[in-house]
């Protein structure tokens, strides 16, 4: 089996870069439309996200959940599965984390890892439903993961406004005990040790996919399920495992949001983090290192958007538009290859 990762031709890097440049160009049309100078707006985005150590820390903090959801989607893609359900797995994971965080009183060395683990298990089980239905009944995972997103959203909505309601007028749980929280590492920003967990997760994804027999099987299924089955690989089993691992990674995003950022479960806290994971995975070419870099780019856009909003007439939603445009252009690889006159199948 040809190994795309080790080859990593320059085109693999070029395509995402062109997609980002095109997205920024189209984005500048929106900036011009509201009567601002694109260079000024992008300049502010850049300095406010990467211009100082503090801004870089904020960028990394915004990037952390996207690293997890990006890895989740990328892992599934490698196994030939489209996990559009990271959003729902994130919510279930987040709820498991908050449950452990508020229900137990344990020393930090046990409590935090236990809460993280619970989030992984929650996300894994939730994603496995779609994996199981695909493996046993052949139902496409895209529709089921979409449906599971909404079921997770309303389920956690109900849990947090009902049985686990914190008692205030806000639809949220009580705070987790501090022994379950990630430690902040660059005050006054909210960057926490969760970013290290993201690094570990990326390394783990790399090792699982490219250094283990299981990973070889998963990728074989991803490249050609029929050939894999013929070659003696249990496709059904690998489908469930791939979805479970993908869900566990998305669950980690939920853990980061609860144990690192909010310290409680606020109803519908995720601002499309799961869906942005799709963008991050595609932009990062489904490679762990690419995913981390793409997440940092998206984190930077988000970190700089508030300042751009304050000091120009450009609404901060511009960055949502740019993120969507990046997905369009990454998805239309065919278009970019043609523009650059690259070979059709690199």
């Amino acid at each position: 089996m040809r190994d795309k990762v080790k080859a990593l031709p320059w085109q693999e890097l070029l395509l995402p870069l062109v997609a980002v440049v095109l997205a920024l160009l189209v984005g500048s049309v929106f900036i011009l439309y509201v009567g601002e100078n694109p260079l000024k707006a992008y300049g502010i985005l850049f300095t406010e996200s990467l211009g100082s150590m503090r801004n870089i820390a904020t960028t990394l903090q915004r990037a952390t959940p996207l690293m997890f959801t990006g890895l989740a989607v990328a892992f599934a893609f490698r196994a030939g599965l489209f996990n559009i359900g990271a959003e729902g797995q994130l919510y279930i994971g987040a709820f498991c984390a908050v449950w452990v965080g508020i229900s137990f009183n344990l020393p930090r060395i046990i409590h935090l890892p236990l809460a993280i683990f619970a989030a992984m298990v929650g996300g894994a089980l939730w994603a496995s439903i779609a994996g199981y239905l695909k493996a046993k009944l052949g139902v496409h995972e895209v529709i089921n993961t979409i449906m599971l997103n909404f079921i997770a959203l309303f389920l956690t909505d109900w849990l947090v406004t009902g049985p686990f309601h914190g008692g205030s007028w806000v639809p949220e749980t009580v705070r987790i005990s501090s022994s379950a929280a990630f430690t902040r590492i660059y005050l006054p920003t909210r960057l926490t040790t969760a970013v290290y967990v993201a690094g570990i997760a990326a390394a783990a994804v790399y090792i699982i996919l490219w250094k283990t027999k299981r990973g070889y099987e998963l990728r074989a299924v991803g490249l050609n399920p029929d050939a894999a089955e013929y070659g003696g690989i249990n496709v059904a089993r690998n489908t469930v495992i791939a979805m479970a691992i993908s869900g566990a990674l998305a669950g980690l995003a939920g853990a980061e949001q609860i144990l690192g950022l909010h310290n409680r479960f606020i109803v519908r806290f995720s601002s499309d983090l799961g869906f942005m994971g799709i963008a991050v995975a595609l932009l990062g070419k489904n490679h762990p290192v690419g995913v981390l870099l793409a997440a940092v780019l998206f984190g930077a856009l988000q970190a700089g958007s508030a300042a751009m909003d304050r000091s120009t007439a450009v609404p901060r939603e511009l960055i949502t538009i740019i993120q969507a445009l990046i997905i369009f252009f990454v998805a239309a690889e065919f278009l970019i290859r043609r523009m650059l006159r690259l070979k059709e199948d690199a």
Partner: protein
Amino acid sequence: MGDILAMLFNTTVFAAAFRMATPLIFAALGGILSERSGVVNIALEGMMLIGSFTAMLVTYLTGMPWVGVLGAMAAGGLIGLIHAVFCVRYRANQVVTGTAINIFAGGLTVFLLRHFFQVAGTSPAVTVIPDITLPILSKIPWIDRILGRQNPLVYLALVAVAVVHVVIYRTTWGLRLRAVGEHPQAADTVGVNVFRMRYIAVVLSGALAGLGGTYLSIAHLSRFSEGMTAGRGFIALAAVIFGKWTPLGALGACLFFGYGDALQMRLQDIGIPTQFMNMLPYVLTMVALAGFIGRAVGPKAAGEPYIKG
């Protein structure tokens, strides 16, 4: 027990069910056209949202809600065209493009809301399409209390179901559409232009979803608010699947989901959380897909870009 029956079979609830179902029906018809042509459309949500916003904006600017309706259909159709260009011409993954459209719509509508009105959240109030009384239906006992007086868009949705049904099953165009979605190679061999069929179907799909969004901002309510579709595009998608990709089936599913929606408040009073009712369409769709209530199987070529041989 009598109370519960009275609550479940109640003309006020049935009338509300039709209203709740209306945006879903339009979007589901759009979903059917697109998927029948072989293009998966998970962007119904985004197309509806753009439709809601455009309907409000055009009505605000012109003072004429029916012009707002046309604007919303045009805007939805334009988004459909973008979906088609990427999926049909540039062979982009249809689910990825759909996701991009949904994110794009969420960003664009708030971007424009803040640009035009300097507010986030909710637009100013605009003129709505007023309800009308239908001369014949309003004379029939019982029916009159459900469909005698409704918004014109409610009636239009029911007419649209009939039209799409006839077009898909009784016209040559419909036959070609189904052929393109089931077996594009074969359709191409007998001279059907696969690309053109898909372009038309996806643009119509966007226009219909946009029309569905219209109902929310200039009929049901009189303003646009951020993310106001609130997942209705995905419920419409669920209705497409639950209705097995047929207009009449989708109509039934939309009415059923609308009925559940209409009952929400009343069920909450007897202790059933609204969130459980909210989950219902999604749970039922998963059950339907798993084959527990008659296997739901979509068009064969849906999701596959067509590459002319």
